[in-house]
């Protein structure tokens, strides 16, 4: 049980996907302007990460590894994720239109999101079991959610600020991201001491 808590907490705080691993920077900078968009996007990411892990882990363990096809990992994973996202979108559209309305627009964006491919590959690289992989994916997704929602708050404060001309737009956003990421550095070392 402690093992799961450690994986979860380090995925959310210490190895935060956006702020310390630099995965999923595009949606982090592009869709974090408004709080409800940021939250919608993050929920869609959590959902796809969990689905993708649930599908790719068994494929790697029971299909690719026993047949010595480990080198096909990259191709197989990206195709599976792309197909999965399409499938989920079609199913949501047909059966749960209300959910499709709030999450649907973000789903196609996620196909080429490096955070989703990243989490599935990292689960294999770290040698996690199926349960550990699912916990890691959930933690990574929650970490993404936390970073997005926090950063949407930071950006809303930037709107009224008087910014030098050259820094307007993306540069000041990156500097703000730097300071947000600095605050997450404070978590390093906390988890080890907590369970020492």
């Amino acid at each position, binding site marked *: 049980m402690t093992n799961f808590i450690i994986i979860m907490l380090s995925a959310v705080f210490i190895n935060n996907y956006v702020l310390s691993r630099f995965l999923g920077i595009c949606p982090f900078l592009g869709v974090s302007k408004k709080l409800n968009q940021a939250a919608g996007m993050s929920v869609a990411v959590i959902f796809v990460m969990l689905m993708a892990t649930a599908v790719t882990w068994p494929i790697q363990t029971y299909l690719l590894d026993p047949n010595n096809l480990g080198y096909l990992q990259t191709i197989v994973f990206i195709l599976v994720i792309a197909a999965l996202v399409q499938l989920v979108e079609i199913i949501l559209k047909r059966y749960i239109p209300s959910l499709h309305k709030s999450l649907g*627009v973000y789903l196609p964006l996620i196909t080429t999101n490096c955070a989703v491919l990243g989490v599935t590959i990292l689960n294999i690289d770290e040698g996690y079991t199926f349960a550990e992989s699912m916990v890691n994916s959930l933690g990574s997704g929650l970490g993404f959610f936390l970073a997005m929602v926090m950063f949407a708050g930071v950006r809303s404060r930037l709107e009224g600020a008087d910014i030098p001309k050259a820094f307007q737009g993306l540069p000041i956003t990156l500097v703000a991201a730097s300071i947000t990421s600095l605050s997450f550095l404070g978590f390093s070392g906390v988890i080890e001491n907590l369970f020492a």
Partner: protein
Amino acid sequence: MNKRQNLLKGIIKENPVLVLILGTCPTLAVSTSVSSALGMGAAAAIVLLCSNIVISALRKVIPDTVRIPCYIVLIAGFVTMVQMLVKAFAPALDESLGIYLPLIVVNCIILGRAEMYANKNKVIDSAIDALGMGAGFTLALLLMATIREVFGSGTWMGIQIPVLAQNNISIMTMAPGGFLVFGILIAVVNKISGGKNAKKNFGCAGCPSAEICGKTSCEEKEEEV
């Protein structure tokens, strides 16, 4: 546009990282040291060159409606090849790039050039475009990595720099330093280009995946709000 301009535009005028703002994830992640930045730049440039040539050669064969999945499969194939070559001949580089090597598949520069250039132009032009863009990506990475490594660890390609080695600012090699250096570099580019890019907002319009997700889903969403 002649061939020379085509080659040079990727390096300065349309630099993929600093002007088009594509491929931000690998730029931020591997620019902690000059050697891994060079390795990443070379790996991505090789994949870009191969994918641009093949996609351009097949542009009349691939049906328009399923072109994006086709491109992704082609790119993933080349990435796997590069991955195997790096594992076999440069294991140290494989170690330092880690997860970012397979993630070249989702690097927007490669899909972006396929979508914006290779599927409309001849093979030779596409190859030149890929060389220019690859060089632009590598040079931008090199610039970022130089700043971060010199100030962060006081070395350059492992060579010690006298005063800085004793007084390094270690935050530069950590995550916040990456965001900070990138932000300031883009501000400098904005200043030099006379604020032409300053107005351009980072969002869905500039993203090559915009085509896949129905072009304007972000903007539509924004209007709704």
